[in-house]
């Protein structure tokens, strides 16, 4: 197993790193912009969870679908949504991915397979099933990934979705990003049973827990799940264990998290760890990574500039896109 884990290609690992660095950089700049008042948003930072979607998306094509949640910028960037479209959407501008009409909790970008971003806990799973059902009916070989949190595993939709996906052998992968807290509620106090992964057993589903901060382990786990889905062997539940460093939303001081727990998690920050690993293995040099970081930073600053200088949507947009034919909208 150890050997198999080590067989990941250097290019893959550096690509996962690039994605993780891009997520971290944009996340930092967004928090900075929100704190300074340049961006007026409620923001759910994914800081600490960067590796999970970076490793998984490495195995997905633009045609594969994802459904994600309010804490989803890492999933969206990893799947290939251009950061400037996310920034502009966050700023509510016409140039945003959704013309500013969705906002931070509702990023959609079908061009890269980002079909739904939901603000409703647990709702990414039933819709992901439908996308997967579409692929199954067409036989187009696409897979769908549903991202959600540990808290969502206590919602009815989770259970209905696992059962249906398993009964129908859908090409869907349920990825629980278990960051140990649902808002301010500790995982072990509010979730019965020892893990989210074990819940898959009840539905006859392949289910596995993985260290979501370990790029290689996550990549291997995802690869098995994606192979299973693409070859018609049905769904997988992946519990990717991780941690969130910035509280539930921006401004949350995480007072409900024991200090040692937070410190230990931050000491094991997966992004610098992967960075060191990539350099240590000689995949990239320190200088190359620094250059990459500079490029990503420039790109993020340009994205912010693009967002903040873009036009607002015109007021006509209020009654546009409500129904397919906007002339049918009755005032």
């Amino acid at each position, binding site marked *: 197993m150890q050997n198999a884990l080590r067989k990941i290609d250097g290019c893959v690992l550096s690509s996962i790193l690039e994605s993780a660095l891009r997520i971290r950089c944009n996340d930092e700049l967004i928090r900075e912009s929100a704190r300074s008042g340049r961006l007026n948003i409620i923001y759910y930072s994914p800081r600490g969870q960067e590796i999970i979607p970076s490793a998984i998306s490495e195995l997905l094509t633009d045609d594969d679908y994802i459904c994600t949640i309010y804490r989803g910028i890492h999933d969206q960037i990893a799947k290939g949504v251009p950061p400037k479209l996310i920034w502009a959407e966050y700023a509510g501008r016409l140039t945003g991915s959704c013309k500013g009409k969705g906002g931070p909790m509702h990023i959609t970008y079908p061009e890269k397979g980002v079909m739904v971003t939901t603000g409703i806990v647990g709702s990414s799973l*039933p819709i992901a099933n439908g*996308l997967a059902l579409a692929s199954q009916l067409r036989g187009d070989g696409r897979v769908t990934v549903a991202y959600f949190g540990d808290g969502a595993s206590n919602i009815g*939709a989770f259970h209905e979705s696992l059962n249906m996906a398993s009964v129908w052998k859908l090409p869907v992968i349920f990825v629980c990003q278990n960051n140990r807290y649902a808002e301010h509620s500790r995982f072990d106090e509010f979730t019965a049973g020892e893990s989210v992964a074990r819940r898959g057993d009840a539905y006859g589903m392949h289910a596995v827990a993985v260290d979501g901060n370990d790029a290689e382990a996550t990549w291997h786990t995802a690869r098995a799940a994606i192979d299973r889905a693409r070859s018609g062997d049905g769904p997988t539940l992946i519990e990717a264990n991780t941690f969130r460093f910035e509280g539930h939303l921006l401004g949350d001081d995480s007072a409900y998290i024991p200090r040692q727990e937070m410190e230990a998690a931050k000491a094991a920050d997966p992004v610098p760890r992967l960075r060191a690993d990539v350099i240590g293995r000689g995949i990239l040099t320190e200088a190359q990574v620094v250059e990459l970081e500079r490029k990503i930073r420039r790109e993020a600053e340009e994205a912010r500039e693009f967002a903040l200088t873009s036009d607002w949507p015109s007021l006509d947009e209020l009654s546009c896109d409500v129904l397919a034919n906007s002339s049918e909208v009755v005032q």
Partner: protein
Amino acid sequence: MSGGSETSGMPAEITVGEALNLALHDALAADPNVFLLGEDIGDEQGGGILGVTRGLSTTFGKARVRATPISEQAIIGAGIGAALAGFRPVAEIMLMNFVTVAMDMLVNHAAKLRFMSGGQTGVPLVVRTMTGSGFGNGGQHSDYLEAWFAHVPGMKVVSYSNPADAYGLLLASIRDDDPTLFIENLGSYALKGPAPQRGVPTPLGKAAIVRPGDDVTIISYSTMVLRALAAADSLARQNISCEVIDLRTIAPYDLPTLVASVGRTRRAVIVHEAVRKFGVGAEIAADLAGRFHGELKAPIVRLGGNYSAVPFSKPLESAYAPGPKQIEEAVLAMIAEHSDGL
């Protein structure tokens, strides 16, 4: 549609149940992107609890006529996801009260994804459901909840009062690019009427004048149209001429047709089975009142379900929803109110 040539084999009259089955059949035959899902809808499960989907899984296969677990959220979610990917799913929620379990999927997702995505995605999903009081089903199996959905921007709400419309409106709903709630009446399935023309949809958003008249406009939809027609018959014998309008599409409703009618009759009665308070009738009444302020011969009247759960006990249940008699009385009272009579 492939159905046109099949018209020859059709009897002159069919039931609503047959019409709905035929619409689903024709939609499945015409478009490979149409598929059905819902509890017990396959032939192995009996073809739906009232047989509306009977025969379809045998004809089109279990992949396209797909029986589901009892999982309302997962059913609607699967419909939404497949619709986002280009399919035209028709999901059945066995009874309208059970949509409560799937409200998140309908209200937060189906109705809003087009707007929230800035028009990048849409949800051409039809949710068929049935309801109606009068069958002793009590408080949790008899509600009309159409106002909930009419109140959410992004959803269409459709109902019928005869077999031809049941066929044409269901076909139109399936072809429509918006999420549509298609409401069937529990008591309507055996209702007979002229057969529709195969393959021809009935346009959404267009009301039907089911009985022309000059003195009073009665606006209704679903089963209540039949009661309005019965009241109009009785009133005609008293020389009162009622125009009866079937909305057919509740949201968005056909205001121009209502305005043209009420503009002539100057009297409007709105009748629905859903609880009157905060109901669809209030919206229509306010729209009409806004347009005809000072020009009406009598205040607009709304008749609707009693402010209670649907009761079980027969006499209570019979009194729950407006019947022909109440509609007739409301019209007579309206006319009496105007000192010049007609």
